[in-house]
Protein backbone atom coordinates (compact mmCIF):
# COMPACT_ATOMS: atom_id res chain seq x y z
CA UNK A 1 0.00 0.00 0.00
CA UNK A 2 2.66 2.61 0.82
CA UNK A 3 4.20 1.89 -2.56
CA UNK A 4 0.96 2.62 -4.31
CA UNK A 5 0.64 5.89 -2.46
CA UNK A 6 4.10 6.91 -3.47
CA UNK A 7 3.37 6.08 -7.07
CA UNK A 8 0.15 8.04 -6.91
CA UNK A 9 1.98 11.00 -5.45
CA UNK A 10 4.69 10.83 -8.06
CA UNK A 11 2.27 10.44 -10.92
CA UNK A 12 0.89 13.95 -11.32
CA UNK A 13 4.37 15.33 -11.74
CA UNK A 14 5.33 12.65 -14.24
CA UNK A 15 2.15 12.78 -16.25
CA UNK A 16 2.76 16.42 -17.00
CA UNK A 17 5.99 15.52 -18.69
CA UNK A 18 4.54 12.75 -20.82
CA UNK A 19 1.43 14.76 -21.69
CA UNK A 20 3.47 17.41 -23.40
CA UNK A 21 3.28 17.57 -27.19
CA UNK A 22 5.08 14.70 -28.89
CA UNK A 23 7.91 16.66 -30.45
CA UNK A 24 8.46 18.89 -27.45
CA UNK A 25 8.63 15.91 -25.12
CA UNK A 26 11.19 14.18 -27.28
CA UNK A 27 13.43 17.07 -28.21
CA UNK A 28 13.40 18.80 -24.83
CA UNK A 29 13.20 15.92 -22.42
CA UNK A 30 13.91 12.54 -23.98
CA UNK A 31 16.95 13.39 -26.08
CA UNK A 32 18.84 15.14 -23.25
CA UNK A 33 17.93 12.28 -20.90
CA UNK A 34 19.23 9.64 -23.31
CA UNK A 35 22.33 11.73 -23.96
CA UNK A 36 23.04 12.09 -20.25
CA UNK A 37 22.42 8.44 -19.46
CA UNK A 38 24.56 7.15 -22.31
CA UNK A 39 27.24 9.66 -21.33
CA UNK A 40 27.31 8.03 -17.90
CA UNK A 41 28.04 4.62 -19.38
CA UNK A 42 30.95 5.92 -21.42
CA UNK A 43 29.61 7.02 -24.81
CA UNK A 44 31.07 10.44 -25.40
CA UNK A 45 30.64 11.04 -29.12
CA UNK A 46 26.92 10.37 -29.26
CA UNK A 47 25.14 12.30 -32.00
CA UNK A 48 21.41 12.24 -31.29
CA UNK A 49 18.93 13.63 -33.79
CA UNK A 50 15.20 13.54 -34.13
CA UNK A 51 13.94 13.51 -37.71
CA UNK A 52 11.09 12.36 -39.84
CA UNK A 53 12.69 9.93 -42.23
CA UNK A 54 11.81 6.85 -44.22
CA UNK A 55 12.49 3.59 -42.41
CA UNK A 56 16.06 2.47 -43.04
CA UNK A 57 15.23 -1.20 -43.49
CA UNK A 58 14.92 -2.56 -47.02
CA UNK A 59 11.39 -3.59 -47.88
CA UNK A 60 9.60 -1.03 -45.71
CA UNK A 61 11.56 2.05 -46.76
CA UNK A 62 8.48 3.79 -48.15
CA UNK A 63 7.11 4.49 -44.67
CA UNK A 64 7.95 7.92 -43.28
CA UNK A 65 8.04 8.18 -39.51
CA UNK A 66 9.61 10.10 -36.68
CA UNK A 67 12.83 8.57 -35.51
CA UNK A 68 15.37 9.19 -32.82
CA UNK A 69 18.66 8.51 -34.54
CA UNK A 70 21.73 7.98 -32.44
CA UNK A 71 25.18 7.60 -33.91
CA UNK A 72 28.35 7.02 -31.98
CA UNK A 73 31.75 5.40 -32.14
CA UNK A 74 32.71 7.72 -35.00
CA UNK A 75 29.24 7.40 -36.56
CA UNK A 76 30.00 3.73 -37.17
CA UNK A 77 27.31 2.49 -34.82
CA UNK A 78 23.80 3.71 -35.23
CA UNK A 79 20.56 2.93 -33.52
CA UNK A 80 17.10 4.22 -34.27
CA UNK A 81 13.95 4.37 -32.23
CA UNK A 82 11.00 5.00 -34.49
CA UNK A 83 7.51 6.15 -33.66
CA UNK A 84 4.94 5.06 -36.22
CA UNK A 85 2.43 7.54 -34.79
CA UNK A 86 3.11 10.97 -33.36
CA UNK A 87 2.48 9.60 -29.91
CA UNK A 88 4.93 8.06 -27.49
CA UNK A 89 2.32 5.46 -26.59
CA UNK A 90 1.94 4.38 -30.20
CA UNK A 91 3.85 1.59 -31.91
CA UNK A 92 7.57 1.91 -31.62
CA UNK A 93 10.40 0.05 -33.26
CA UNK A 94 14.11 -0.29 -32.81
CA UNK A 95 16.85 -1.06 -35.27
CA UNK A 96 20.58 -0.87 -35.12
CA UNK A 97 23.64 -1.48 -37.25
CA UNK A 98 27.36 -1.54 -36.74
CA UNK A 99 30.30 -0.60 -38.97
CA UNK A 100 28.32 2.07 -40.79
CA UNK A 101 25.99 -0.50 -42.34
CA UNK A 102 22.28 -0.19 -42.98
CA UNK A 103 20.06 -1.78 -40.35
CA UNK A 104 18.47 -4.95 -41.67
CA UNK A 105 16.16 -6.04 -38.89
CA UNK A 106 13.21 -4.08 -37.53
CA UNK A 107 12.51 -4.96 -33.91
CA UNK A 108 9.64 -4.04 -31.67
CA UNK A 109 10.37 -1.55 -28.93
CA UNK A 110 8.56 -1.50 -25.56
CA UNK A 111 5.91 -3.68 -27.10
CA UNK A 112 4.61 -5.13 -23.84
CA UNK A 113 5.01 -1.98 -21.78
CA UNK A 114 1.75 -0.29 -20.81
CA UNK A 115 3.28 2.68 -19.01
CA UNK A 116 5.38 4.83 -21.29
CA UNK A 117 7.37 7.33 -19.27
CA UNK A 118 10.59 9.20 -19.80
CA UNK A 119 12.50 6.96 -17.41
CA UNK A 120 11.20 3.80 -19.01
CA UNK A 121 12.06 4.84 -22.55
CA UNK A 122 15.58 5.67 -21.39
CA UNK A 123 15.81 2.38 -19.50
CA UNK A 124 14.68 0.35 -22.48
CA UNK A 125 17.08 2.18 -24.77
CA UNK A 126 20.05 1.60 -22.52
CA UNK A 127 19.00 -2.00 -21.94
CA UNK A 128 18.73 -2.68 -25.66
CA UNK A 129 22.08 -1.09 -26.48
CA UNK A 130 23.69 -2.99 -23.62
CA UNK A 131 22.15 -6.19 -24.94
CA UNK A 132 23.84 -5.47 -28.25
CA UNK A 133 27.16 -5.44 -26.31
CA UNK A 134 27.74 -1.86 -27.37
CA UNK A 135 28.10 -0.39 -23.90
CA UNK A 136 30.01 -3.08 -22.09
CA UNK A 137 31.57 -6.39 -23.01
CA UNK A 138 29.57 -9.44 -22.07
Amino acid at each position, binding site marked *: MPEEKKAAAAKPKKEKLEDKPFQEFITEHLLPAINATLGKVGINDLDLTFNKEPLPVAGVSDVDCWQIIGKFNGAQRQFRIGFLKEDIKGQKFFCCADNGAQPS*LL*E*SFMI*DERRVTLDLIV*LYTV*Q*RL*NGQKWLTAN
Partner: protein
Amino acid sequence: MMKFLKQVIDYTKEAGQAAKYIGQGLSVTFDHMSRRPVTVQYPYEKLIPSERFRGRIHFEFDKCISCEVCVRVCPINLPVVDWEFDRETKKKKLNHYSIDFGVCIFCGNCVEYCPTNCLSMTEEYELSTYDRHELNYDNVALGRLPYKVTQDPMVTPIRELGYLPKGVVSGHDLPAGSRGAGKLPEEILAQMESDAPKEEAKAAE
Protein backbone atom coordinates in the same frame (compact mmCIF):
# COMPACT_ATOMS: atom_id res chain seq x y z
CA MET B 1 28.49 -96.87 -59.06
CA MET B 2 26.00 -95.97 -56.35
CA LYS B 3 28.64 -93.89 -54.67
CA PHE B 4 29.22 -91.87 -57.81
CA LEU B 5 25.49 -91.38 -58.31
CA LYS B 6 25.10 -90.18 -54.72
CA GLN B 7 27.86 -87.64 -55.26
CA VAL B 8 26.12 -86.28 -58.35
CA ILE B 9 22.81 -86.02 -56.47
CA ASP B 10 24.46 -84.22 -53.53
CA TYR B 11 26.19 -81.82 -55.87
CA THR B 12 22.95 -80.98 -57.62
CA LYS B 13 21.16 -80.51 -54.29
CA GLU B 14 23.87 -78.22 -52.97
CA ALA B 15 23.85 -76.18 -56.18
CA GLY B 16 20.09 -75.82 -55.83
CA GLN B 17 20.47 -74.79 -52.17
CA ALA B 18 23.13 -72.23 -53.08
CA ALA B 19 20.94 -70.77 -55.82
CA LYS B 20 18.06 -70.55 -53.33
CA TYR B 21 20.13 -68.72 -50.74
CA ILE B 22 21.57 -66.33 -53.30
CA GLY B 23 18.07 -65.66 -54.52
CA GLN B 24 16.87 -65.04 -50.96
CA GLY B 25 19.70 -62.61 -50.34
CA LEU B 26 19.16 -60.72 -53.57
CA SER B 27 15.41 -60.54 -53.01
CA VAL B 28 16.12 -58.03 -50.25
CA THR B 29 18.16 -56.05 -52.72
CA PHE B 30 15.55 -56.21 -55.48
CA ASP B 31 12.86 -55.34 -52.97
CA HIS B 32 14.32 -51.83 -52.87
CA MET B 33 13.34 -51.31 -56.51
CA SER B 34 9.71 -50.97 -55.48
CA ARG B 35 10.43 -48.82 -52.43
CA ARG B 36 9.96 -45.07 -52.12
CA PRO B 37 13.07 -43.02 -52.99
CA VAL B 38 14.17 -41.22 -49.83
CA THR B 39 17.56 -39.83 -50.78
CA VAL B 40 17.90 -36.08 -50.50
CA GLN B 41 20.92 -34.49 -52.16
CA TYR B 42 21.92 -32.48 -49.12
CA PRO B 43 23.10 -29.65 -49.11
CA TYR B 44 21.65 -28.84 -52.53
CA GLU B 45 18.29 -30.24 -51.51
CA LYS B 46 16.85 -30.04 -48.02
CA LEU B 47 13.70 -31.42 -46.48
CA ILE B 48 11.18 -28.84 -45.30
CA PRO B 49 10.79 -29.28 -41.52
CA SER B 50 7.27 -30.01 -40.35
CA GLU B 51 5.12 -27.39 -38.64
CA ARG B 52 6.02 -28.16 -35.05
CA PHE B 53 9.69 -28.69 -35.74
CA ARG B 54 11.79 -27.69 -32.76
CA GLY B 55 14.93 -26.03 -34.02
CA ARG B 56 17.12 -23.25 -32.75
CA ILE B 57 15.34 -20.97 -30.32
CA HIS B 58 14.72 -17.37 -31.29
CA PHE B 59 14.77 -14.70 -28.62
CA GLU B 60 13.30 -11.21 -28.78
CA PHE B 61 15.21 -8.99 -26.43
CA ASP B 62 12.58 -6.30 -26.15
CA LYS B 63 9.84 -8.62 -24.94
CA CYS B 64 11.78 -10.35 -22.17
CA ILE B 65 10.73 -9.35 -18.66
CA SER B 66 13.51 -11.32 -16.91
CA CYS B 67 11.01 -13.50 -15.06
CA GLU B 68 13.29 -16.56 -15.31
CA VAL B 69 10.40 -18.92 -16.00
CA CYS B 70 12.44 -20.36 -18.89
CA VAL B 71 15.15 -21.28 -16.39
CA ARG B 72 12.70 -22.93 -14.01
CA VAL B 73 10.99 -25.08 -16.62
CA CYS B 74 14.25 -26.08 -18.29
CA PRO B 75 15.24 -29.65 -17.33
CA ILE B 76 18.79 -28.51 -16.68
CA ASN B 77 18.20 -24.80 -15.88
CA LEU B 78 20.05 -23.88 -19.04
CA PRO B 79 19.09 -20.32 -20.06
CA VAL B 80 21.26 -17.66 -18.45
CA VAL B 81 19.26 -14.56 -17.55
CA ASP B 82 21.53 -11.78 -16.40
CA TRP B 83 19.43 -8.99 -14.99
CA GLU B 84 19.63 -6.33 -12.33
CA PHE B 85 16.99 -4.35 -10.52
CA ASP B 86 16.75 -0.75 -11.64
CA ARG B 87 15.86 1.24 -8.54
CA GLU B 88 14.70 4.38 -10.30
CA THR B 89 12.05 2.76 -12.46
CA LYS B 90 11.50 -0.29 -10.22
CA LYS B 91 11.97 -2.57 -13.16
CA LYS B 92 14.25 -5.47 -13.93
CA LYS B 93 16.86 -4.40 -16.41
CA LEU B 94 17.92 -7.32 -18.61
CA ASN B 95 21.63 -7.19 -19.28
CA HIS B 96 22.32 -10.36 -21.20
CA TYR B 97 20.55 -13.57 -22.07
CA SER B 98 22.05 -16.73 -23.46
CA ILE B 99 21.24 -20.34 -24.25
CA ASP B 100 23.92 -22.93 -24.94
CA PHE B 101 22.68 -25.05 -27.83
CA GLY B 102 25.47 -27.52 -27.27
CA VAL B 103 23.66 -28.52 -24.08
CA CYS B 104 20.04 -27.72 -24.98
CA ILE B 105 17.88 -30.76 -25.71
CA PHE B 106 15.29 -28.74 -27.64
CA CYS B 107 12.43 -29.92 -25.44
CA GLY B 108 10.66 -26.61 -26.00
CA ASN B 109 9.59 -26.08 -22.39
CA CYS B 110 10.99 -22.55 -22.28
CA VAL B 111 9.10 -21.61 -25.43
CA GLU B 112 5.93 -23.17 -24.06
CA TYR B 113 6.05 -21.35 -20.74
CA CYS B 114 7.46 -17.94 -21.70
CA PRO B 115 4.73 -15.53 -20.53
CA THR B 116 5.55 -12.83 -23.07
CA ASN B 117 6.27 -15.12 -26.01
CA CYS B 118 9.71 -13.68 -26.39
CA LEU B 119 11.08 -17.18 -27.03
CA SER B 120 10.05 -19.06 -30.13
CA MET B 121 11.12 -22.14 -32.06
CA THR B 122 12.63 -21.79 -35.51
CA GLU B 123 13.20 -24.27 -38.32
CA GLU B 124 16.93 -23.81 -38.15
CA TYR B 125 18.71 -27.09 -37.44
CA GLU B 126 22.18 -26.71 -38.91
CA LEU B 127 24.13 -25.97 -35.77
CA SER B 128 27.48 -27.57 -36.48
CA THR B 129 30.58 -25.74 -35.34
CA TYR B 130 34.24 -26.60 -34.89
CA ASP B 131 34.16 -25.60 -31.25
CA ARG B 132 31.27 -26.53 -28.99
CA HIS B 133 31.55 -23.21 -27.15
CA GLU B 134 30.49 -21.46 -30.33
CA LEU B 135 27.06 -22.96 -29.72
CA ASN B 136 26.61 -20.81 -26.65
CA TYR B 137 24.33 -18.23 -28.25
CA ASP B 138 23.95 -14.84 -26.63
CA ASN B 139 20.97 -12.57 -27.10
CA VAL B 140 22.44 -11.03 -30.26
CA ALA B 141 22.85 -14.43 -31.89
CA LEU B 142 19.49 -15.61 -30.58
CA GLY B 143 17.82 -12.54 -32.04
CA ARG B 144 19.07 -13.04 -35.59
CA LEU B 145 16.50 -13.95 -38.18
CA PRO B 146 16.41 -17.72 -38.54
CA TYR B 147 17.50 -19.56 -41.68
CA LYS B 148 14.69 -21.09 -43.66
CA VAL B 149 15.04 -23.87 -46.19
CA THR B 150 12.38 -22.37 -48.43
CA GLN B 151 14.03 -18.94 -48.53
CA ASP B 152 17.49 -20.09 -49.58
CA PRO B 153 18.00 -19.58 -53.34
CA MET B 154 20.79 -22.18 -53.34
CA VAL B 155 18.59 -24.93 -51.95
CA THR B 156 15.79 -26.95 -53.51
CA PRO B 157 13.27 -27.55 -50.74
CA ILE B 158 11.86 -31.08 -50.72
CA ARG B 159 8.53 -31.89 -49.11
CA GLU B 160 8.18 -34.80 -46.75
CA LEU B 161 5.85 -37.72 -47.57
CA GLY B 162 2.94 -36.44 -45.51
CA TYR B 163 2.87 -33.19 -47.45
CA LEU B 164 2.87 -34.68 -50.96
CA PRO B 165 -0.19 -34.85 -53.24
CA LYS B 166 -2.27 -38.03 -53.11
CA GLY B 167 -0.55 -40.96 -54.79
CA VAL B 168 2.79 -39.17 -55.16
CA VAL B 169 5.64 -40.79 -53.26
CA SER B 170 8.62 -38.65 -54.21
CA GLY B 171 9.07 -35.00 -53.37
CA HIS B 172 11.31 -34.46 -56.38
CA ASP B 173 10.13 -32.67 -59.51
CA LEU B 174 6.72 -31.73 -58.19
CA PRO B 175 4.78 -29.44 -60.52
CA ALA B 176 4.54 -25.89 -59.22
CA GLY B 177 1.54 -25.21 -57.02
CA SER B 178 0.84 -28.87 -56.26
CA ARG B 179 -0.82 -29.35 -52.90
CA GLY B 180 -0.69 -31.98 -50.22
CA ALA B 181 -3.48 -34.52 -49.85
CA GLY B 182 -6.49 -33.39 -47.83
CA LYS B 183 -7.68 -29.95 -46.82
CA LEU B 184 -6.02 -27.18 -44.90
CA PRO B 185 -7.46 -26.39 -41.44
CA GLU B 186 -8.84 -23.05 -42.64
CA GLU B 187 -10.57 -24.76 -45.55
CA ILE B 188 -12.19 -27.29 -43.22
CA LEU B 189 -13.32 -24.41 -41.00
CA ALA B 190 -14.74 -22.50 -43.96
CA GLN B 191 -16.64 -25.56 -45.11
CA MET B 192 -18.00 -26.19 -41.60
CA GLU B 193 -19.18 -22.60 -41.40
CA SER B 194 -20.88 -22.77 -44.77
CA ASP B 195 -22.51 -26.09 -43.82
CA ALA B 196 -23.73 -24.88 -40.43
CA PRO B 197 -26.77 -22.84 -41.68
CA LYS B 198 -27.94 -25.78 -43.81
CA GLU B 199 -27.79 -28.16 -40.86
CA GLU B 200 -29.65 -25.67 -38.69
CA ALA B 201 -32.34 -25.43 -41.32
CA LYS B 202 -32.54 -29.22 -41.42
CA ALA B 203 -32.82 -29.42 -37.63
CA ALA B 204 -35.57 -26.78 -37.68
CA GLU B 205 -37.55 -28.87 -40.13
